[in-house]
């Protein structure tokens, strides 16, 4: 790739600005970081590559003073640092852009940037704050309106606010935690340009990612972490994506999903001109139409917040439909309640598995009956038959490989992957004709992702219809038979999965209609 960032580092021989030595951090039941030693040099992009749960974010939070290491020491320019909190890290020139933005939507850009390091004085001098933000943003070529409300900005611009926050505090080390996860392809290119400029300015950048191609593209050095340990540090020139993947996961990984040929059946789901509003009565879905056939996975691609959630929630009955229709097997299901939708044969894996999909303080067995606890299989005249609940739980836990295989554990005590398996087991157990999967693999490790992909494809091969909403373009591309791109609540285009390209979808995701 032609970005400046990819051109070899000339500063690799400089002494490190930030050094970690033998960092160990334990949480109840896990060792998140196990004897980790690393360094970061000025003018260098050092990528930390690892799966979800490999301990990357914990490590960065230690550098930023949010966690305290149980053992080991952080050094800045050779001096040991006592990081008793983020304010200490900030004072030493460490800045961090968190995966989940640390922004306050109701405040302005200027207020967000200066927060905690405001211009001195008892009064808050908002004009001076805005002027200083303007100056910084010009100095770093990161244009932004200081007076805009952060909640009104696009995700890309919000990230820019986060970066400016670090430089307002004179950061010399910048930690970017999964910065590309929420961006469109072109926003990612922008970010890489910015990183290249910062590198030229002598900033040390820690780039946290689990995406191989991005790391290969921008990193000067790559450190791979697995299960809290550093596996190896190497240069991009001496490795390849396959090797990185294997190191990351600890075994041979198949980078491509195996998929049987697309054999579309009759149309099962027919969404016609759907209009849906959000909680504040603001229309988020503006006349969406698409069809899904039996034996088909329709991928829904788009930048987060373009109406995907509202669209899906309207289909499953969690949100009122303003106008338009949803036909399912020829039947009008618009405006049915969630229970009626579920009984009609539609299952739904929600994107927020802990918030919507599970009751964490219920046992696994109870979570498995969350949707049909009053159905004929479980209940008799308002009474729950616990023998049947246990039987079902035992069967599903075994069938879906939930670990530990104990249905009387609380769902909250399971790992993210196993929680998702519980949801999957419940939703598949309802024998749906149509499955809606919203970000079904978000935050899971490679093993769990593979498992869920396999199950989705099985369902498709059985002739069921699937609507897959994901923010991971790779996931959409590898699973979908057809891809619908949504932008500002409208479908820009629907393209066949085998003809779609990253770049083409990226343009559509930014609202370029039918240009792909």
């Amino acid at each position, binding site marked *: 790739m032609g970005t400046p960032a990819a051109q070899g580092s000339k500063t690799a021989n400089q002494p490190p600005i930030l050094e970690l030595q033998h960092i160990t951090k334990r*949480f109840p039941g896990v060792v998140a970081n196990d004897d980790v030693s690393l360094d970061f040099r000025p003018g260098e992009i050092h990528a930390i590559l690892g799966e979800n749960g490999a301990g990357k974010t914990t490590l960065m939070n230690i550098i*930023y003073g*949010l*966690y*305290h290491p149980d053992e080991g020491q952080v050094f800045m320019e050779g001096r040991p640092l006592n990081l008793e*909190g*983020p*304010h200490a890290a*900030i*004072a030493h020139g460490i800045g*961090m852009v*968190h995966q989940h*933005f*640390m*922004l*306050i*939507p*109701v*405040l302005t850009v200027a*207020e*967000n940037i200066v*927060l*905690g*390091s*405001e211009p001195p*004085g*008892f*009064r*808050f001098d908002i004009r001076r704050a805005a002027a200083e933000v303007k100056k910084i943003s010009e100095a770093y070529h990161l244009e932004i309106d200081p007076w805009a409300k952060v909640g009104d900005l696009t995700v890309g611009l919000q990230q820019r606010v986060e970066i400016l*926050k670090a430089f307002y505090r004179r950061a010399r080390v910048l930690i970017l935690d999964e910065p590309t996860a929420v961006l469109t392809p072109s926003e990612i290119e922008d970010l890489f340009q910015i990183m290249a400029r910062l590198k030229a300015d002598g900033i040390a950048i820690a780039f946290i990612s689990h995406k191989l191609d991005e790391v290969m593209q921008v990193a000067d050095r790559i450190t791979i972490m697995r299960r809290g340990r550093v596996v190896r540090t190497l240069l991009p020139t001496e490795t390849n994506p396959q090797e990185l993947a294997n190191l990351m996961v600890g075994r041979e990984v198949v980078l491509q999903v195996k998929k049987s040929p697309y054999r579309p059946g009759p149309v099962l789901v027919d969404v016609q001109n759907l209009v849906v509003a959000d909680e504040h009565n603001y229309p988020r879905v503006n006349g969406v139409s698409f069809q899904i056939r039996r034996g088909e996975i329709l991928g829904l691609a788009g930048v987060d917040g373009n109406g995907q959630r509202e669209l899906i929630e309207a289909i499953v009955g969690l949100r009122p439909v303003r106008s338009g229709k949803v036909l399912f097997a020829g039947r009008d299901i618009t405006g049915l309640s969630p229970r009626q939708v579920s009984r009609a044969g539609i299952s739904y894996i929600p994107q927020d598995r802990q918030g919507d999909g599970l009751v964490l303080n219920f046992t696994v067995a109870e979570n498995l009956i969350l949707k049909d606890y009053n159905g004929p299989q479980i209940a008799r005249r308002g009474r729950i038959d616990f023998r049947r609940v246990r039987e079902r739980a035992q069967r599903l836990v075994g069938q879906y490989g939930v670990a530990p295989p104990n249905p009387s554990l609380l769902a909250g005590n399971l790992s993210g992957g196993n929680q998702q398996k519980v949801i999957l087991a419940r939703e598949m157990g309802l024998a749906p004709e149509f499955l809606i999967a919203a970000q079904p693999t978000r935050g899971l490790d490679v093993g769990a992702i593979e498992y869920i992909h396999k199950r989705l494809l099985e369902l498709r091969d059985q002739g069921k219809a699937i609507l897959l909403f994901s923010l991971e373009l790779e996931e959409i591309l590898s699973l979908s038979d057809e891809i619908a791109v949504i932008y500002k609540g409208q479908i820009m285009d629907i393209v066949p999965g085998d003809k779609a390209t990253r770049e083409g979808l990226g343009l559509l995701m930014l609202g370029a209609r039918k240009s792909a």
Partner: protein
Amino acid sequence: MSGLLAIFGNMQLWASTLSLSVPLVLPALGGTFSERTGVVNIAMEGIMLIGAFFAVFFSSLTMNPWVGLLGAVVAGGIMAVIFAWAAIRLRSDQVIIGMAVNIFASGLTAYLLNTIFGFGGTPVNTPMLPHLNWPWLGRIPVLGPLLNDQSILVYITLLLVVAGHFFLFHTRLGLRMRAVGENPEAADTAGINVYRIRYLGVLISGFLSALAGAYLSIGVLNSFEVDMTNGRGYIALAAMIFGRWTPFGSFGAALLFGFASALSMPLQSSVAAKNLVQMLPYVVTILALIGVGGKSVAPAADGVPYEAEK
């Protein structure tokens, strides 16, 4: 009809609206600060009671109402700090801890009333805070009868509302308080001590509630009665919600509830069923809450405990 007209045309009604609003305005303003930093403070009811009791206690002990006021604020502050410690540091359920404080305060003040003053109640010669009377103010139409000859705490309250607005929206500390209530994690990563800010918010609400309690016991009366706050702490919370967590909004809403109380006073004599009329402020509170419904948006992290260090 003419009876009603006489009631509404009576300046006395508006003056007593103002005077009856004070013990709602102060805790509503306090609740605004507490909830803006993310702590739901139901304990204001109990802190008011504590304030009311200790105001009388110190006032009668020293025969100086100002010492009484100071004693009320200190006692209320202590109560607020204990509440804050449990709510912030121990991450206890804020509503339950608030209930605990309310039950404790109700019991303690009644217990101390009996223990210290016996069954005759507080001394009749307890000095009360002065009412201010300026002849020049009295001569101004409308404003005169409204503002003149009120307790000094009424004027202090009006000043505090304005100061509260300035503090919350135009100072660095105010900005930080609002940030902590919206997203404590973001504030923490910006180097702000979330706990300290929350303590400050709760402490302000404690001081203001104690002032309100002192107003009840040595501002308009010179005695303490068991459970004399009568749910004003809860009504103040409703006023704060109705006022959208802003000082001026809370002030306006508290005036509305104060008006309902003031209205019930003349109605009590002109309408037979005074007990039904006395329900008015409570009914208005419920109606206001129903009316404002989901439209009033609380600070995003309101009521959510924050764990800083892991």
